[in-house]
């Protein structure tokens, strides 16, 4: 099983006047793992189902490998699909569910059995082959759905929120397993999710979608650290914005004055314009310090509210200039913080990013 390239070229889908997917173009490289990430209703499922052939696009072209498949029926495409509700056939045992596709493909009994065995051992399901889906837990059903998809031996794997019905702990375990499986089999994968952690942790590249379009397509670090726009920035994590004026100091540094007068030295990057700009920083990139601290990029704040999250604390604070800040403090820091404390915050020069 070697992965094939998927190419979407200007794919669109309308429902009446409503444009569900708009002129979508994307190439997924052989063996690559790409996630569609986005809010509910942004067209993730619609796009995935068009690739699978369950829905026909209104326009555009779709290729798997070098084969044009835009209007091919779903049973003629070299891909397998994992459904959000698993869609296991209730009247078939686990083994029958997995063996259905290989049997249709005309494999010999011995080859079918081998496919079933391999898929079961890949997904750690051995021993459950004669159970019916109703006799399995949610996590086991999820594995069977993956096993059934893998047993088809296709070059492309499409998954629509396959983990969203599992509890958090299982979801975190499963996403690692799925990712390892995908890497081992080198199968080209498109994965739909609205969980940013899932997308960031599993994907080679993440396509953040917004109202039927790709708002950004990049590697996870890029999406998180240097998002191109506000929509992407705030969809993948917490964010603080600063409007203000930027001036270059020398080839490596710039100087930024926010609208409220706060001053920051920031790392100069390529293609950064001077003048009016918008910067962003993430809550966990801001460091809280005791009140006496002074220095570059350090300003006083008052703590308004603290949310304890276990691994970290989310602190809402207000600067002397009246600006609201969201700061995430990791719990390795023994500093005790109370509402009303007057502290300082520090943002490192490389931690303020330009945004459109």
């Amino acid at each position: 099983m070697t992965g094939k390239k998927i190419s979407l070229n200007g794919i669109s889908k309308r429902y009446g006047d409503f444009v569900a997917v708009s002129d979508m173009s994307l190439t997924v490289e052989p063996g690559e793992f790409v996630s569609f990430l986005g809010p509910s209703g942004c067209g993730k499922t619609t796009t995935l189902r068009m690739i699978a052939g369950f829905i026909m696009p209104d326009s555009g072209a779709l290729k798997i490998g070098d084969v044009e498949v835009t209007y091919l029926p779903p049973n003629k495409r070299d891909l397998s699909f994992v459904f959000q509700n698993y869609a296991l056939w209730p009247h078939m045992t686990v083994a029958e569910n997995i063996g259905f596709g290989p049997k249709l493909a005309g494999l010999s009994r011995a080859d079918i059995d081998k496919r079933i065995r391999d898929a079961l051992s890949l997904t750690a399901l051995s021993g459950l082959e004669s159970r019916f889906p109703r006799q399995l837990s949610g996590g086991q059903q999820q594995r069977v759905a993956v096993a059934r998809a893998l047993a088809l031996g296709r070059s492309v794997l499409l998954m629509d929120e396959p983990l969203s019905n599992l509890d958090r702990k299982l979801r975190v375990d499963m996403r690692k397993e799925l990712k390892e499986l995908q890497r081992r089999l080198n199968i080209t994968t498109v994965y739909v999710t609205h969980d940013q952690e899932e997308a960031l942790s599993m994907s080679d590249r993440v396509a953040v979608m917004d109202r039927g379009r790709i708002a950004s397509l990049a590697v996870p670090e890029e999406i998180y650290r240097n998002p191109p726009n506000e929509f992407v920035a705030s969809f993948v994590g917490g964010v603080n914005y600063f409007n203000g004026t930027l001036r270059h100091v020398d080839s490596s540094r710039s100087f930024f004055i926010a609208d409220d007068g706060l001053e920051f030295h920031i790392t100069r990057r390529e293609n950064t314009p001077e003048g009016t700009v918008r910067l962003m920083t993430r809550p966990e990139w801001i460091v809280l310090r005791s009140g006496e601290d002074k220095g570059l990029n350090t300003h006083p704040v008052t703590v308004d509210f603290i949310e304890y999250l276990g691994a970290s604390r989310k602190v809402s604070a207000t600067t002397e200039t009246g600006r609201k800040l969201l700061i995430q403090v990791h719990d390795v820091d023994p500093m005790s913080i109370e509402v009303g404390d007057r502290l300082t915050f520090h943002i490192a020069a490389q931690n303020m990013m330009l945004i459109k």
Partner: protein
Amino acid sequence: MSVDSLIEGRQASPPHHLRRPGLLVSLMVAPGVLVLVLFMILPLLWVVRVSFYETAQGTTMVPAWVLDQYVRFLADIWYLRNVVWLSVFVSIVSTAITVLLAYPIAMYVARATGLRRQILQTLVLAPLLIGLVSLVFGWIVILRGGGLFNSLIIWLGFVDAPIRLLYAMPAVYILLIYVGIPYVVMTLLDNFERIEPTLLEAAANAGAGGWRIFASIILPLTLPGLNAGVLVLFALNFSAFAIPLMVGSANTNLIGLVVYKQAMQLGNLPFAAAISVIMVAISAAILVIYSRLMQRFFLWRLGV
């Protein structure tokens, strides 16, 4: 995490108060039970009791505990052949044809949506709403000697002279089937609707074309509905009396009709009662055997 630990510990026993119905529940159920006993169980028991009576001078009932009525029926080869066997045969054939016709109809209706669906569903249900007598009159117009059907086949050149449909077996079959279709369509429709579309998409993704999806997924998943339809239909057809009475002849003595004639026309209640008991017993036996077979070969897979 081991795979098996995932499903263990899920079947804890229910808390105590859910296990036994409380006094309040018993009180709430009591009126229903009373009505059931008064109007359903007692009449049935009475029929059973009367079936053991003697008859004097033809029809007078004499309380007793004898098997005369049963012997009279079961020892008579004419009854066994022309009533019991005929009824079994006719009801199996008519049920089978009904199911074959109703299945595609249900599938067609299940696919329609919106207003179209409403209209189709009403059309299918119409026979149940109109009432048997009106329906029979309608069919008489169609089936009689110079009726629509005969005119049509003569005009098309299939036959030269009208064929006899009415007041004969063909009319009995046609009406049993016609009246039975709505029952089966209804149970099937419900079943079709409960099939998740993703189950069919998953099959297509696995490489199945239309026929394969039908045979491997749709048909098996609608067997419970089909089964329920068959059970009701067979019971109805086996005990039918109105249809053979209205459009049949002396050669269409279905067992229900014989009961009707004995009770209502000849006034021999003990004999009618005994035939009723025999009718219910045969019907139940056939349905039990049928259910066992269905269960054995398929339904266990669905856990029903």
